[in-house]
């Protein structure tokens, strides 16, 4: 039995965990349940844990649901555990809260000795029998279990059956019908349970519309909103679903989506597509980015406007393919030989993932240099209900770009000989980029150091090298004025000041909400743009603090080291995690309490 549950006694939320063998459609079933909650005006946050295999092995999906306006992240305690097999019951029953419920198939699982009926509500639901009687197939056991969950929590059944009908109506109405029958039967078993299950899930009237999306859907949508023309990728967890997302929408939105032979090709194609003028992006995880690195540098020296999604997992090498980690921060900052300007932004949640992605395309164009969106498995894989994106706020800023016409109309881009200077040295480091097709815009986009025309031969002249290198590096100053600033929240008079980046913001927000409820004073900063590093803002944040702490999902303290390097400031406390799991809010909560 889990002891201290920081959610407190009168918590409005409920966490449901569904476990079973891989290949049983557990995630899909869970997402159906989540959608029905969101349609009822509730909010959700889900977390999927799965091994790197397709069949067999153990999968678990959990969804936290609440009538409150926002669910900040997952929690550890489970209020309802759905065990589709005996292993799930054995493995996860200890996560159940006092008074929680175990839904299980009495034909598959013997709970005798596994639970204490004084503390846990046992809800037997004959899943196999229900499915058989409805004439369904084995995978519908999930749906019967979902029905039981709804019945147990007195959640109106029609939200679930509406979700099922919407999901299957187009594909096969008869399958929708069977699913509804199975869910209804499961609902009966759940609602007639004899033990007193105290939790209720009631619909919220007049709730604002919400989006139910994972991080990859948010990034893909941001790219589409930005007017992406070419997306190239090679499948790699957790970035693969972004490739599928884009591919499913390519013709409808006029995007060329290429599943390439490898990540080397993906990154080089994206640089080629950027030369052609398309807004171009690739995405991968750390292993794929390792292969992209040389061409990432090519984007830097050739001043190509490209966006790279680096969605990290636990490394090195193949590492933990389906688990999360924040250990590629330094890799993103230093990838590729030589020096060139880059921008690295790290969204903390799905709202930021959408916004930072469309903004990344603007930054890439304005700076003519690569921009990295640094995410992780925790962001990519898991859905949450969020406010509807502000589509009106999206802008397309292409910077110094000539798409049509004749370069004689742009005399300041021409040399004394009247020829176009692709890499003209400018004050802000950015030259006017003319696309192929523009009259008088002959050029060489070059991986070699080059002169203002782009010719490599003159690149070896020392003065040329200095002029071009300094021109490129000057773009970092411009970048500093364009990139999103850090986000700060919490107490105005904090006892502890915490820094983080990326998705750690989610459990940190939850932990801080609990602490604020209990009167503790904590302030936090999410470093949104990791490069160019917001040295002044971070220094000011640390400078006035009583105690400081960095929380990050790696062993070495990569953000802390960066702060020390750029701000010449140390921090007092740190919390690291590198077991492949995201920080839990309980862990962050405990750790902050110790520091306070």
């Amino acid at each position, binding site marked *: 039995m889990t002891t201290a549950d920081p959610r407190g006694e009168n918590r409005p939320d409920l966490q449901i965990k569904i476990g079973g063998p891989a290949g049983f459609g557990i995630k899909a079933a869970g997402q159906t349940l989540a959608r029905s909650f969101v349609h009822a005006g509730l909010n959700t946050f889900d977390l999927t844990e799965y091994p790197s295999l397709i069949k067999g092995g153990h999968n678990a999906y959990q969804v936290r649901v609440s009538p409150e306006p926002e669910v900040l992240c997952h929690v550890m305690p489970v209020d309802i555990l759905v065990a589709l097999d005996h292993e799930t019951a054995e493995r996860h029953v200890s996560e159940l809260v006092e008074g929680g419920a175990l839904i299980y198939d009495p034909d598959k699982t013997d709970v005798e000795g596994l639970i204490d009926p004084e503390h846990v509500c046992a809800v037997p639901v004959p899943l196999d029998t229900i499915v058989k009687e409805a004439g369904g197939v084995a995978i519908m056991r999930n749906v019967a279990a979902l029905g039981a969950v709804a019945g147990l929590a007195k959640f109106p059944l029609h939200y679930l059956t509406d979700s099922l009908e919407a999901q299957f109506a187009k594909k096969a109405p008869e399958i929708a019908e069977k699913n509804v029958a199975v869910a209804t039967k499961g609902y009966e078993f759940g609602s007639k349970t004899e033990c007193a299950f105290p939790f209720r899930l009631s619909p919220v009237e007049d709730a604002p519309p919400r989006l139910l999306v994972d991080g990859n859907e948010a990034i893909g949508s941001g790219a589409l909103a930005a007017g992406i023309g070419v997306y190239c990728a090679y499948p790699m967890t957790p970035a693969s679903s972004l490739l599928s997302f884009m591919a499913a929408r390519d013709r409808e939105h006029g995007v060329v989506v290429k599943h390439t032979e490898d990540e080397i090709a993906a990154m080089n194609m994206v640089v*080629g597509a950027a030369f052609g003028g398309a807004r171009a992006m690739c995405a991968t995880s750390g292993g794929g980015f390792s292969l992209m690195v040389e061409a990432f540098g090519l984007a830097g020296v050739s001043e190509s406007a490209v966006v790279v999604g680096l969605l990290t997992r636990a490394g090195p090498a193949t590492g933990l393919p389906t688990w999360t980690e924040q250990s590629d921060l330094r890799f993103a900052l230093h990838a590729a030989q030589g020096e060139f300007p880059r921008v690295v932004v790290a969204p903390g949640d799905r709202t930021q993932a959408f916004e930072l992605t469309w903004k990344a395309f603007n930054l890439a164009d304005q700076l003519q240099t690569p921009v990295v969106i640094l995410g992780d498995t925790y962001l990519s894989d898991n859905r949450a209900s969020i406010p509807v994106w502000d589509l009106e706020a999206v802008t397309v800023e292409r910077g110094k770009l000539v798409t049509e016409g004749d370069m004689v109309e742009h005399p300041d881009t021409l040399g004394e000989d009247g020829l176009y200077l692709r890499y003209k040295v400018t004050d802000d480091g950015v030259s006017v980029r003319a696309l192929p097709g523009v009259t008088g815009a002959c050029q060489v986009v070059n991986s070699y150091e080059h002169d203002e025309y782009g010719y490599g031969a003159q690149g070896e002249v020392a003065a040329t090298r200095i002029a071009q290198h300094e021109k490129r590096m000057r773009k970092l100053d411009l970048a500093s004025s364009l990139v999103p600033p850090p986000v700060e929240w919490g107490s105005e008079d904090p006892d502890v000041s915490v820094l983080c980046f990326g998705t750690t913001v989610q459990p940190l927000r939850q932990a801080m909400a609990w602490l604020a409820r209990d009167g503790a004073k904590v302030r936090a900063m999410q470093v949104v743009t990791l490069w160019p590093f917001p040295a002044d803002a971070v220094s000011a944040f640390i400078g006035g603090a009583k105690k400081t702490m960095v929380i990050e999902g790696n062993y070495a303290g990569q953000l802390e080291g960066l702060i020390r390097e750029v701000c010449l400031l140390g921090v007092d406390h740190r919390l690291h995690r590198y077991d492949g799991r995201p920080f839990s809010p309980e862990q962050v909560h405990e750790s902050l309490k110790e520091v306070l």
Partner: protein
Amino acid sequence: MPTVKDFETPNKPTWCPGCGNFNMFQALRQAYELTSQDFEHLAVVWGIGCHGNGADFTRCQGFHALHGRALPAATGLALSNPELTVVVEMGDGDGYGIGLGHFVHSCRRNIDMTVVAHDNQIYGLTTGQASPTTEHMMKTVSTPTGVLEEPVNTIGLAIAEGATFVARGFAGDVPHMTALFQQAIEHKGFAVVDVFQPCVTWNKLNTFAWFRERVYKVEEESGYDPTDRAGAMALSLTTFHDMACTPEQCKLPIGVLYREEGRPTYQDGLPQLDEPLWKRALAPRDLTEMVRGFM
């Protein structure tokens, strides 16, 4: 329309005197004139190697890519703008060594572009190491006791993997090369022209004189049918030989070895590539309907 001279830049070619690249450069410019290319839409992508210095000498939309990565860069460019004529120049080490994977997949795609391989059977720019097309047992600085591998069958590979125009040229015959380049550029689909391009500095075996004694034009052979894929593949196998082969023993075919018209190109499968894709980013895409699907 620009003529041969117009495709030159103020930069003077820096290849070794007598290098096969000069003739290839000349033949390519002639082909550009013959196929009515203009500076704005002729996009040439180079890999890294001696051939790549051509990026400084050719007036066009140039892209001097990474070593071995000209093909994917050119593919991205072609997939971003259907109005461009895309030509790739690559070396043998560049395109058949470090970049071989891209070559195979580009053939499979039948993407509409032209690839000209400067095949001098040696690494020139890095001073004379063995390349993937160096003769078996030839001694080089990286293989002082001889190359233990067989050379890549570039022609057979291109045919096997789906290229729809496969030709071989000889840098000692500019008019013949010019005709091959012209046909390759005009071909709709993935066109490969592998050119025997003697390296006068590092390859003392496969010289102009060596090739002159061995090459013959397939189009002058009565009965050669370049549309016969199996026949073309069989012919590609005859070009293997050992270093000591006499002119009588090894005859090296040049000309159009294989061509297939009418096979859909990669671009044919992309109805969304109906205009330059920079036009997709004139304003934010309207996602109202898509976003409704997330609700």
